């Protein structure tokens, strides 16, 4: 009998599957479950010309803009809620040039659905009467064959590689979020390749003991990367809270940069992106004391 294969790979190998110019899908939600370990590897390697398709985004997208990695952005939000309603690179974009295809969450969901449902378009009521059709070439007006007013329809958005953070997976790629799945399942289904970083690898038996908790069956997952604390500084469901301090450190550096003082931001990249050669080096740079302090309250 032949054996079932493992899909667990190293973080560096996973990042190597994402070339310059790729369309990447980023999972998570604002400041929770962001696949930061994988994204930091892409930042370290200064991947260029990316199209970013993302669920409501946190400061990771702001950072990628700051590093000049983004050519096109399709996301309904970039910010960190109360910590920072908009990121520093919102301000006139600091000279970074890239295109934005405006979507709200409903429109994004519709574009992803059109992709994996194999249909050429889907109507989206949320775009009717708004500026979205003027600001997004994927949206067009269409008459209703059943006699109602015209509607806006959205074309499919295809993703080359989806990058997702979750709680746990087995070696075959059965992934469990142990909490909300957010838009991760749709981003995965719209993608040609899906990489999931997890806090913990578990046995197939553990997955089978709670199959209704499986949020991405192995069918949807091409590779799994073990990355404990891999969502830091965003929160990881059931594992740790967001690191508000580190986010504010970035915000201060970004704001200084926009005011002409580039040193703090350069220091930030050096300390958290470029000097740590590996994910574990990054965690050491942050400090384990600090990481452990982010443990969830009861």
């Amino acid at each position, binding site marked *: 009998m032949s054996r079932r294969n493992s899909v667990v790979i190293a973080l560096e190998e996973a990042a190597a599957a994402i070339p310059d110019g790729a369309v990447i899908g980023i999972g998570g939600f604002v400041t929770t479950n962001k696949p930061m370990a994988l994204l930091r590897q892409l930042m370290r390697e200064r991947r260029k010309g990316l199209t970013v398709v993302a669920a409501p985004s946190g400061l990771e997208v702001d950072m990628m803009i700051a590093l000049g990695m983004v050519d096109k952005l399709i996301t309904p939000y*970039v910010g960190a809620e109360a910590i920072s*309603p908009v990121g520093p690179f*919102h301000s*006139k974009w600091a000279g970074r040039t890239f295109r934005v295809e405006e979507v*709200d969450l409903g429109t994004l969901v519709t574009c992803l659905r059109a992709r994996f449902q194999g249909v050429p378009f889907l109507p989206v009521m*949320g775009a009717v*009467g*708004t500026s979205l059709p003027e*600001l997004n070439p994927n949206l067009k007006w269409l008459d209703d064959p059943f006699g109602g007013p015209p509607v806006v329809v959205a074309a499919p958005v295809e993703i080359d590689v989806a990058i997702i953070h979750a709680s746990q997976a087995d070696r075959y790629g059965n992934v469990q979020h142990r909490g909300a799945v957010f838009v991760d399942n749709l981003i995965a289904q719209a993608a040609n390749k899906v990489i999931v970083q997890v806090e913990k690898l578990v046995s197939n038996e553990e997955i089978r003991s709670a199959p209704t908790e499986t949020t991405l069956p192995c069918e949807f997952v091409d590779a799994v990367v073990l990355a404990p604390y891999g969502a830091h500084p965003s*929160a990881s469901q059931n594992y740790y809270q967001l690191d508000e301090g580190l986010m504010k450190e970035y915000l201060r550096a970004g704001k200084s940069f926009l005011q002409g003082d580039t040193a703090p931001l350069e220091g930030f990249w050096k300390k958290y992106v470029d000097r740590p050669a590996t994910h574990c080096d990054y965690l050491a740079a942050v400090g384990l004391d600090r990481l452990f302090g982010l443990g969830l309250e009861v």
Partner: protein
Amino acid sequence: MPVTAQELMAVFMSRQVNNGDYISVGTNLPVPTAGVLLAHLTHAPDAKLNILSYFTNLTDIDRFDDLTQIANPRVAKWAEAVMSMEAMVNAITRMDICFAGGIQIDRYGNTNLIGIGSDPDNLKFRGPGSVGTSTVMALVKKYYIFTNDHSPRTLVEKCDFRSTVGWDRGGADARVKLGLPGGGPQYVITPKAILDFAETTKAMRLKYVLPPASVEEIVANTGFELVIPGKIEEMKPPTEEELRVLRTRVDPKGLLRGKA
């Protein structure tokens, strides 16, 4: 201590909630959140509160320690159900109440979270993005527009861009003509006033003045001509019970009283 404008805003919101309503509580909107929680702890124990991806019931909670942090994954501990965003998008047509913010809000309740400027490729200010508002406000049964800034900068004649459509260019049938299933914006809630929309034109109209603001101040700080009724009614003041629950359970730290 006298009742603050923010407390009045919360009490007004609370009174809009019917028992059993399905309500999505947005993130980083502490005053509407306080209003919804106040309703939930008084007359609406059956309200279905959707926060992020969680359906929660919060009536058993004694007091809330941080209104700015209600909408984070920590609410998972109160969850009765966890939904995917896809399921939540599917559910918007069933939703009774939601809230829309805006960096610009126009006379007909259209709002803008996209940005300020005329050239989309070179905005003067880039907004946070539409988040979920475009689709939610198209479909939800009724919604409320909320802003912390009652000024001509926010309340504008015309939005530079529209992330949600309220009453479009006016008229009671504006949304029907667009085919939008949702009931549209009902009130605009600011620190100076509660505003509604005139029945036939759907132009924004002053409903209540929130002290210490005055009609003159409100008119001066609105970037378009507000409809001012001949006689402006006064909002029924908070009851003793409303104020007690608001101050001791919903907002014990006094965020709405300028303390937190």
